[in-house]
């Protein structure tokens, strides 16, 4: 099974790519943001760690699911807690992703798209056989992010600048998809990259 690592700046259009690879080429789609949610579902590993560390009172809502607002407050107010969260959550997300990849392999998938927004930042590029980076110009990125997430310009800029510079990601990528043009242009690049992926 060929594993394509898909990454790119926030609001760069990764979902356009993963959607096409899934719908047109049948590649399995494994999403790191979703994995991060799944490990925090009731009974799952991160849920247990939160309960252990902060107690049911602070960590859970009445229905037993995580009280994300309450935990968020603790984490953002306290850099040590943030460091703790990163140190325990990253390996758990990675484990979940590896498990998902194994499930796909067992079911005979030919390819899987590993959709990880911060693939390079967390240093997981070795999980993939090749890495595709999707990018748009900073202007487009800012505009999209503000619209999509309803953010002020300042907040959007904060988010963008907290990520690794795009130039560095592009330099390290195996495939670079320029998403500045229209959908047709993006699709053409996706198809070309996909064909090359399987002629290697």
């Amino acid at each position, binding site marked *: 099974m060929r594993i394509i690592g898909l990454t790119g700046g926030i609001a760069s259009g990764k979902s356009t790519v*993963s959607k096409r690879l*899934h719908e047109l080429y049948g590649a399995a*789609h*494994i*999403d790191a943001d*979703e994995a991060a*949610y*799944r490990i925090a*579902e*009731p009974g799952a590993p991160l849920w247990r760690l939160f309960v252990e560390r902060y107690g049911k009172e602070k960590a859970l809502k009445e*229905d037993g*699911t995580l009280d994300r607002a309450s935990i968020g407050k603790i984490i953002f107010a306290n850099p040590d807690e943030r460091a703790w969260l990163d140190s325990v959550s990253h390996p758990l997300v990675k484990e979940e992703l*590896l*498990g*998902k990849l*194994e*499930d796909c392999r*067992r*079911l*005979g998938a030919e390819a899987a798209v590993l*959709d990880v927004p911060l693939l390079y930042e967390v240093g997981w590029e070795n999980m993939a056989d090749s890495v595709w980076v999707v990018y748009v110009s900073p202007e487009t990125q800012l505009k999209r992010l503000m619209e999509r997430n309803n953010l002020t310009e300042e907040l959007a800029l904060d988010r963008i600048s907290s990520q690794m510079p795009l130039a560095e990601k592009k330099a390290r990528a195996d495939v670079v998809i320029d998403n500045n043009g229209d959908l047709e242009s993006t699709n053409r690049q996706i198809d070309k990259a996909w064909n090359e992926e399987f002629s290697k």
Partner: protein
Amino acid sequence: MTRLQTIIMNKRKKTRKKYAFLFVAGVVLMTLVFCSFYEFETVQKKYFYPYPYKEFVERYAEANGVDSALAASVIMNESKFRPDAKSHRGAIGLMQIMPETGEWISVQLEEERFTPDMLHDPETNIRYGIWYLAELRQEFYGNDILALAAYNAGRGMVHEWMEEKKWKKGFHSISEIPYAETREYVVKVLKNKEKYQSLYERR
């Protein structure tokens, strides 16, 4: 026979041969076309949409009031009909039932002596899985999309989404499902359900 007569006769033979050849070629071609249609369906059934355990699936689908093509499609997507399938989270067998879910189902069915091992048995797995699918359909107002989302993401998660995103009973915009895996699962199961219908439910 004159030389001319011989020539004419030979010519006639040749023409007859030519027609005979065309006729045979035509028959062969038509047979091939016919076979390929037939083969296409056989190949599809055999390799892309197999249906082992059909009897069990139909029996328990009927008993629980679930469309058997829907049940078959769930099995296809969960395990590709492999009774020994196991997920990294510990879901077991044809319908990928979690041991805790199996335990819960056994209590609802008032069956004593449940062990997760029993889920490796194809018939038990199908019986439990289809019962659970029927239960989810009932819980989610007969809405297949919500029921399938719950089969994949868990019923609690779907209730949470419904509340958060103000989904109604008749929810049908699959693209709003937050988990990519769940979204794609629902799309695939519904698509494959149609395939099972067209391939196995005789018109």
